[in-house]
């Protein structure tokens, strides 16, 4: 069972996303800001991270940069989530090191496809 870390500051979004993913059979852990996200990534060793980009304390871009700079966490795929589908956000997320990118509100089937694609690839321990 793949473990997904959701880093999201909005409580409802966090709750909703985690419940919907849990219904699909994923193990879900959550963090509420970038710093906590980093800690959770270290301790929980998730198979994939859903990272909101606008986060308090440390934003998603910075958190992703740090994840990708750290040898222990750099293989964990990160899907960046931003609130709006402007190209700039996508580029920024990819430049920060995200492996993929999606917009909020998530369209679950599409997001699931992206998750599956990243988990199905190499670098996940299952």
């Amino acid at each position, binding site marked *: 069972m793949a473990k997904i870390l959701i880093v999201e500051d*909005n409580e409802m*979004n966090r709750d*909703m996303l985690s*419940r*919907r993913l849990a219904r699909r059979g994923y193990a879900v852990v959550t963090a509420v800001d970038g710093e906590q996200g980093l800690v959770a990534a270290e301790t929980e060793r998730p198979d994939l991270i859903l990272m909101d980009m606008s986060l308090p304390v440390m934003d998603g871009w910075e958190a992703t940069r740090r994840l990708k700079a750290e040898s222990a966490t750099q293989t964990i795929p990160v899907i960046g989530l931003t609130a709006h589908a402007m190209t700039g956000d996508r*580029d920024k997320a990819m430049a920060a090191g995200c492996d993929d990118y999606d917009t*909020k509100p998530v369209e679950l089937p599409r997001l699931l496809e992206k998750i599956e694609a990243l988990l199905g690839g190499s670098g996940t321990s299952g």
Partner: protein
Amino acid sequence: MIGRRLDKRVIEAVAHLPFRVQTKLLLAFLAIVALLVVVGAAGLQVLTGVNERTVELIRSERKIAAYRQVQHDTTSQLYRVTSALLANDNRSLDSALRQLNQFGYDLERLQFVAKDEGELLGRVKQDYDRFVAVINKVVELIRGGNVAEAREAQLKEAQPLANSMERLTNQLVNKAEADMVAGIDASENAYRTAKLDVILFAIGSIAFALLLGRTISWSLVGPINEIDARLSRIAEGDFTQRVAVPNRDEFGALAANVNRTCEQLGALYQQLEAASQHKSAFLANMSHELRTPLNAVIGYSEMLQEMAEDEGLDQFLPDLAKIRDAGRHLLNLINDILDLSKIEAGKMDLYLEEVDLKALVEEVRSIVVPLAASGGNRFDIVCPDQLGTLYTDRTKLKQSLLNLLGNASKFTQAGRVALELRAGDDEVSFIVSDTGIGMTEEQLGRLFQAFSQADASTTRRYGGTGLGLAITKHFCEMLGGRITVESESGAGSTFTITLPTESAPAMLEAPEPVAATPRPAIDDHRALVMVVDDDPPSRELLAAIVRREGYRVIEASDGEAALSLAREHRADIITLDVLMPRLDGWAVLAALKSDVGLREIPVIIVTVLADRGIALSLGATEFITKPVDRARLAAVIRENVRGGGTVLVVDDDPESRNLVRRHLDKLGWTIAEATDGGDAFEWLAGNLPPAMILLDLMMPGMDGFAFLHEIGNHPEWRDIPVVILTAKQLGAAERELLAGRTREIIEKGADDLAGVLRRTVVRLPRSKSALAAG
């Protein structure tokens, strides 16, 4: 040079005269008329002189004739008298005496002619009188019979007198003739001098008249040109300068009016611009705030739908679907509004890349097929087999096409929706047609306006935000293309987007609003890096590296664009490729270094060449070979982005101040220090506003909180970004208190103080002067 300056002075002096324009013109006209009169008078005087001399000469001629007559008469009188005396008959004697008398009268009359010769003539007369006396005596003697004695008297007394008379009359003639020759010479000289005088005077007058005309005209044309130039600048949106016109006439008044209008327009423009920016910022924030709860609405309704399906609660499904659809619709609206506000604020960026048309069409097909099918429509794609690429913004093109195709599907029932591509030499057309309800002329007229669906009732029947076409039109224009529409009510519509195969980089500036100068983004003061490279992949890579380091990036795809963008945007640092078409990197480097306004910008040469020596000797700051080592490029940029000003460090602890100074020194910032709030205000009062205030909270005297409160009362300083640097453990209430007034809170003893400071100052305005100029 001096002449020109004098000329300018004179023109200004004339302009400065406090008369109305017609008065000046009248004065100039009168001056010229006066000159004409004077020239005429001078000519007349010369003519009069010439006439007088001519009269004089005629008189002289007559005089000479008279003298000659006298000379002749003298000789003949003497001869006649001598003959009569010899003949010795009474009749002859009488006749001779009569003639002699007559001659005397003639001599008398000559007095009126002679002037200069009066004395000579007097002597002639004297001799004549004596001669007459002698002759009378001789005649008496002859009549008395004393012929011998008469002969004696004649020979001894009359003959010398006759000789003397002849000599004198000769002299008389000679003198008159000599006078006349002198008179002719004098007259000729006088005429020559007078002619020269008149000519010189006429030339002088003409020159003066021309100069006067020129001065007057320029004193009038100059301000017109000035005002015209200013009006052109105003039309271009530059309200900064004023017309400087020395005139104190109607033009002075006009210039003053133009200045006043310009000022008012400028103020109005600033207000409008500020209002527009506030509106955009408000919309952007609002959109974000609205989306967050919407996410929850949509997400939870979807989840409930899934759960209802799982548990067989089918009666809830339609209502849940309505909640979700309404949520999605609202979301689309918000997204469109945000797009539009970004476009209007000039903040919509373009991301130009090679777009594979075939792939794009396929992507569009997969999205549109279900849309079209839902209205019972057929969706056809007509495009040539060979489709190349388009250098454009992929997302915006796709969004535009989807907007049009979505509309076509929405407004067509059981018909046909088609997308056709036509590739021309340097442009590509995307033709979206449908067989739907079409539009009337009037509806077409307001088609591309925001919030204007063809009919208000359309929104209710067909949904949609009414913003799609307005956005599509903006996108097409940003990409250097255009959109046109043909439609007939009831017979369907055809929209055509035509884009250039290569959206020019200049288009990047297109969405900028009328403002001639780029304005600093409200909260984006990060250092600006300009990446110059003609090869798109390579340029994008560099830009990505730079963005990742937290800088703003502008891209230029050739040398000329680089120079104009550098001037316009005042990049903080430039990475420059060498091998480029037209203007190569060396030329750009040389041009940058010879421009006073640009030469301070550090330039990093990034090239496959190995000409480090050339690069550095031309003034490049660093030299990096391709392929680029990310870390090295980042380090070089970091080292060379200049801090652009002063950071005021307010801290009572000298150790802390030193630490900050060391870190910021390296980044090129100037540090000013103050030991408490009061000290800081003293510094502020005596210096230009700093780029940032780094504020400790716990200080003796005025502490950080008091300082923040106080600075809020000073409009001139309250916009200075304040960053708190504190060792104090802050409670939630304190954090909240500080949050509204400070940019960031840094804790003393942070692991990576240098890094935190660097990231903070990177976002600062480069310098006050750069901002003010921008």
